[in-house]
Structure formats: C-alpha cells, structure tokens
C-alpha cells in the first residue's frame, strides 16, 4: 500500500513535468526547418515519394542501421538466453501437443506463400507507399508464426535464418559503405541513379536497402519466434 502511494506520489511529480510540457506546448502551423527541408528536397535529392521512408533509409539511415542491429542483437541474445536452457535440458522432454486442426494446416499451406508475397511487396514498395522493411519484415515473420501455430514442433533451420540475417546485414552495410565512395557519404542512396520519381525502380538504393532490411527484420523476428517456440517443453 505504501509502495503504491509512493509510486503515485512520484508519478504525480512526473505528471507535473508532463503537464509542464503540455502547457507550454504550442502546435506548429508551419513545418519547421527540418520538416520543410525534407518536404522540399526529398523528391529531387532522394527521389522517394514516401518522405518517411526517405528519412528512415537515407537521411537517418544510421538510426535504421542501429534499429536493425537492435533486432539483430535481440534475436541473438534471445537465442543465447533460451538456447542455453534447451541445451541443458535436452530436447527429449517435449510434450505431446495436440495436432492442429486440418483447416489450419491447409489454410496455412495456402496462406504462407501469399503472406510472404505481401511482405515482399510491402518492403519493395516502401519508398512509394506506406510501409517498408519493418512492416514487411513483420509480415514475413507472421508467415513463420502461422507455420509455428500450425505445427509447434516444426523445426526451422537456424542456420538458414542466421545466414539470411547476416547476408542482408552485410549487404546493407556494404551499400552504405559504397555511399562513401560513390556518393556523398555513408548510406547515401545515390549510388544508383535516382530514376523516375514515383516508379518502382527509383529513389536510388532505397528499394534495395529496404528490401534488405525487410529480409533481415523478417529473419530476426522469425528467429525470435522460433526461439521462443522452441522453449516449449522445458
């Protein structure tokens, strides 16, 4: 009880800070300097229709690299964390799970390729429409999820996942480095021609990078899911 009271008290303090932020906040009517720059320059400099994508992949590409690395790290650590337990206990203890229904099995058989396709679409078109590597990656991972739901004991190749992860990561980095030599700097997308604004093959390296991100994120999400699911039975 006292604990709750204390927590409330301090949260009240934090609330005061937030209240201060709110009361002093005045919504902008205009874009600020940065926003305006992006609005005005993205099209000709980067060539991406989706400004958010341009920012994520190019302007703030380093953030995104970090972000991808966060997922990479998380996946790795989850694998270490959960892998150790499995290794210790051995896999013989897996309990018998009821088989999933026929409908789910068949459905997933049909759905998985579709979902994968959707994911690919989302991340390839990231520079044009809403969505991109992360969303696409998540969609790809949902396909894996579906497969896992269908057959919890299904064995996924960790090796495959990690190779996809590594390759896409390395390519991402490689393209970034190419930017230093071929264009204005690390992660500059203008190593490829910007192309025609609004078309699929435009915006320089963005579609490539976003695809790599999509692959990588998908692999990482999948790895996490698989690792969690393999803890089953311990």
């Amino acid at each position, binding site marked *: 009880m006292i*604990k*709750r009271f204390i*927590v*409330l008290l301090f*949260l009240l303090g*934090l*609330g005061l800070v*937030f209240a201060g*932020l*709110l009361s002093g*906040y005045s*919504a*902008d*009517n*205009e*874009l*600020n300097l*940065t*926003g*305006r720059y*992006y*609005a*005005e320059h*993205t*099209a*000709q400099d980067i060539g991406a*229709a*989706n*400004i*958010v994508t341009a*920012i*994520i992949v190019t302007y*703030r590409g380093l*953030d*995104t690299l*970090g*972000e991808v690395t*966060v*997922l990479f*790290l*998380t996946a790795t*650590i*989850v694998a270490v*964390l*959960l892998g150790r*337990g499995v290794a210790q206990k051995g896999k013989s203890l897996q309990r018998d799970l009821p088989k999933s229904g026929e409908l789910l099995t068949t459905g997933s058989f049909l759905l998985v390729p579709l979902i994968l396709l959707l994911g690919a679409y989302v991340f390839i078109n990231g520079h*044009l*429409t*809403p969505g991109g590597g*992360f969303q696409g990656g998540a969609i790809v991972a949902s396909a894996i999820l579906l497969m896992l739901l269908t057959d919890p004991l299904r064995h996924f190749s960790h090796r495959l996942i990690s190779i996809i992860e590594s390759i896409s990561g390395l390519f991402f980095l490689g393209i970034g480095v190419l930017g230093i030599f071929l264009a204005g700097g690390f992660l500059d997308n203008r190593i490829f021609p910007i192309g025609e*604004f*609004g078309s699929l093959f435009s915006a320089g390296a963005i579609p490539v990078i976003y695809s790599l991100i999509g692959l990588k*994120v998908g692999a990482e999400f999948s790895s*996490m899911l698989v*690792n*969690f699911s393999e*803890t089953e039975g*311990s």
Partner: protein
Amino acid sequence: MVYVAMVTGFILILMGLYGALTNSNILRMIVAFSVANTGVNIVLVAVGYIDGRTAPILDAAVPVAEAAVRIIDPVPQALVLTAIVIGLGVTTLMLAYAYKLYEIKGTLDIAQFSELKW
C-alpha cells in the same frame, strides 16, 4: 486533437509506469511497459501533427511543389517507427529474461529476485 492525443499519451505513460512499478508479477510489468511505450508513441506522433494536412507521401494528391504546405512533419513519424522497433526489441528481451527467471526460481514475483542487494 493534438492535445487530446498528447494527454492520452501521457496518461498511458503514467499508467504504464504505475502498473510496472506496482505489479510484482514480472509479466505484468512487461505488459505495463508496453502500454507505456504505446503512450510514448502516441505523444511522438502527436507532436508531428499539423492540423489539416496529409501524410508525408508525395503522390498525385500531394505534388512535390506543394509538399511544404500540404504534408505534416515526417520526422516524428520516422522516429516513432524506430522507437516501435526498438521497443519491441527491449520487450522481447524482457520476455526472454522473464522466462529465464521463471525457469530459475519457478516464480515471477520480482521481489523474489533480490539476492543481489546492498
């Protein structure tokens, strides 16, 4: 509208923190944190919003020339995207830890994990 979202976001943050700091069950703490994270995301998006403008995607509806007066600020959105993904990373990690802690002690009561102290 912005203010409503912002207030909601702040309230969610505070509620999330309250939940995280009062519930002794580790899983519930993580759940509470995810609520708080959602709150943060809402605040972030709200800051970038400008009344009456559209999404920062240039297409037929928003020609390049008019972009500066038609779209909302794209930066916060980019930030939120990153924040969401990072949030997921941390949440996943916490979950993995939670599982591991449970495996060690057979309990999820955070107060039980205090051999390290003083």
